[in-house]
């Protein structure tokens, strides 16, 4: 496994700074529950950045990383829905809650299929939501162009997730070294895109 470099650490530290700034100053115009969801999304990015700085890439081997990582699209999509489609908020919240518990439980179960299915289901739906919802908002609600950066962030983090999944299955066409070299930049650009995107809401 590739060792984390100084450049990787600097990029991750920048991620922490941007996400911190967003939590402190960028969420005040939203309502209480939406602020909570966005704080969780950026908070997970901060903690992920800090843990990678401290522990290196080996932490990605931990089976609970995937559970925590699911919180990013899940909480971001919850924030988008609670802010723009209030009628869907409660059903989506129930889906998110049940989905997260399902992922956590199936991680502990011996069946790998169940664990994979629950991840694909919950991560997939929330990922598609944060990709499509900003596009929909841009088209239908004449929301500023910046909101599309959230879709860009969703694409980037999706690519990161797929690359890591390939790595874990051992069927990657790209070398592990290259994937780990990309990872801090993907996380950084994702944070930057989410930061820019929320400015459009």
């Amino acid at each position: 496994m590739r060792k984390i470099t100084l450049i990787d650490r600097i990029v991750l530290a920048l991620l922490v700074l941007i996400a911190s700034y967003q939590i402190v100053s960028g969420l005040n115009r939203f309502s209480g529950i939406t602020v909570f969801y966005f704080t969780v999304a950026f908070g997970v990015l901060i903690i992920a950045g800090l843990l990678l700085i401290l522990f290196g890439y080996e932490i990605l081997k931990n089976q609970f990383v995937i559970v925590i990582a699911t919180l990013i699209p899940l909480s971001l999509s919850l924030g988008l829905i609670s802010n723009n489609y209030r009628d869907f908020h409660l059903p989506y919240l129930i889906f998110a809650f049940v989905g997260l518990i399902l992922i956590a439980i199936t991680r502990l179960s011996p069946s790998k299929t169940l664990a994979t299915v629950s991840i694909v289901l919950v991560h997939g739906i929330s990922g598609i939501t944060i990709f499509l919802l900003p596009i929909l908002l841009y088209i239908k609600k004449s929301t500023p162009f910046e909101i599309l950066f959230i879709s860009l962030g969703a694409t980037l983090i999706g690519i990161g997730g797929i690359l890591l999944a390939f790595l874990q299955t051992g069927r990657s066409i790209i070398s592990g070294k290259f994937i780990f070299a990309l990872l801090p930049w993907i996380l950084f650009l994702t944070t930057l895109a989410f930061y820019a995107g929320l400015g459009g809401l």
Partner: protein
Amino acid sequence: MWKKIKERLRLYWELIKALQTGLLLLTGITGFITSKCPIMNYAIFISLIGSLFLSISGSTVLNMVIDRDIDTRMGRTAKRPLPAGKIKPKEAIIVGLSLSLAGILWAFSLSILYGLLIFSGLFFDVVVYSMWLKRRTPWSIVWGGIAGAMPIIAGRALGVGKVDFIGILLGLSILLWIPTHILTFSMKYYTDYAKAGIPTFPSVYGFQKTRLIIAVSSVGSVLSVGIGITALGLSWGYLRLLAVFSTGLLGLVFLSIIKPSERVNMGLFKYASLFMLSSMLILISGTLL
């Protein structure tokens, strides 16, 4: 000649534990800034930094002199300048006393209260913690913690002119953070401390009880900073950010209890330092911006 001076400075830089001194210095600066004193008064601000730096590094040098026999017996510290014989104890005592005295006098010239607090911090650290209790009881870290809390209390007292509730809260956050910092370290170097005959929480109470003590003190530290931020009237955003950093800290504390490992323990040790650094930066930026 220049090469010799450079080498000497490098040895003393090691002797004052630059990172630890830097973090304590930052807490003192934070305490002062939270008082919303006009920090653009460069003379006071520079005097605060100078007096703190001198007294903290002076007390660290004196601690190194006192602990040199212990350091010789521990693998981790055997190469330090004093046990390795690179600096003579007599010379270190003179330097340590000079730095401490200069720091204390400078502090008294700023304010009597500030000077008294700086002096008591130094007294608790060198006399009570290092000379008296460190070799007798693991509870010595409480007194070391009080000494560690003094810079932030003193910095704030210099700004507001008294020791107030917020100052005590901020001091408490440092005091309660110190067990997380020291106990994770004493678990990692358990055999080293045992070899040197220093009683630590892991050696007296066992590892699991030590982890529980870390958990309780971490929660206390997080709460103290949180209440401090609220009492200072900083915006909600800063409290949210503190909640995020605290979640990371408490998550690692929880993990160290349910799934203990050396990796988690050292991760917690490093994260705790990051947490304290972040808390101070939150307090500074929340007050200034």
